[in-house]
């Protein structure tokens, strides 16, 4: 059983992070920005798991614990974020981020 080297996992993680970042800053819809943020969070989780698996002391389970808590935090974040999107949509009839400019002077 030969695994790919650690750097390949890190490359995949960097790719996913960049894709999520590009989506988060380039798209207009609030929901798509949330999906991009989720992709970035997942890339960080993949880094944690890869470093845990390839690390010197995998018995400590540190990376696994960190990812479990991170998934829980991400669930809370998505729930509140989508509730905010729905509340704004109810008031403004749009989810476009550039339409939400009430605070602009």
């Amino acid at each position, binding site marked *: *059983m*030969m*695994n790919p*080297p650690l*750097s*390949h*996992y*890190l*490359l*995949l993680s*960097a790719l*996913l*992070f*960049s*894709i*999520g*970042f*590009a*989506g988060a*800053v*380039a*798209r*207009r*819809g609030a*929901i*798509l920005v949330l*999906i991009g943020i989720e*992709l970035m969070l*997942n890339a960080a*989780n*993949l880094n944690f*798991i890869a470093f*845990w*698996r*390839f690390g010197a002391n*995998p*018995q400590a*389970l540190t990376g*696994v*614990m960190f*990812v*479990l*808590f991170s*998934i*829980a*935090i991400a669930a*809370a974040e*998505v*729930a*509140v974020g989508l509730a905010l999107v*729905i*509340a704004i949509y*109810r*008031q403004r*009839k*749009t*989810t476009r*981020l*550039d339409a939400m400019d*009430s605070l602009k002077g």
Partner: protein
Amino acid sequence: MLNEISFYLLAALTVACAVAAMALRRLVHCALCAAAAFAGLALIYLQLDAEFVGFAQLLVYVGAIAILIVFAVLLTRGEEAAPGGRQSSPSWISGVGIAVLLLAGLLLPILASPSLQHGAPPAPVPSVKRIGEELMTRYVLPLEMVGVLLTAALLGAVVIALREPSDGNLPGNSPAQQRAKTGEAMNL
């Protein structure tokens, strides 16, 4: 060998789904592609011998978050019907340029570092029992805090999303928006 092939297949699938999730025009397609990317990541966790995290990812991301996103897309539909609406923000070229720079800045150290090229040590086989013991002993305080946080997020999401439409009388509201609000209230 088999492990390597499966990893590269899964990695290609995940990256393709992530790109599709960020680049497609219809929001529903984006949400489904994101769910596929999350599922591919869960399979990569399984391939990395982190079974519990893999199944937790499947349950939480593919099972809950993707469904939540699809529901939000369905609840906020209507703006997609507007013709001629551009999907990307006006400064999307600079955003993508910054993302490419970020990718280059991440790739250069990863490819240059010799200490990242070694293979994996023998599989540690973390049993779910070990994870449960750790959660109940060493990580019991973070576990309780996550419980509090999830409860607060649940209550907050309900409070935010179910706010009465009539109590937010902002000065900038036009009559059309007020009519839309009352129509919404009747629909509820």
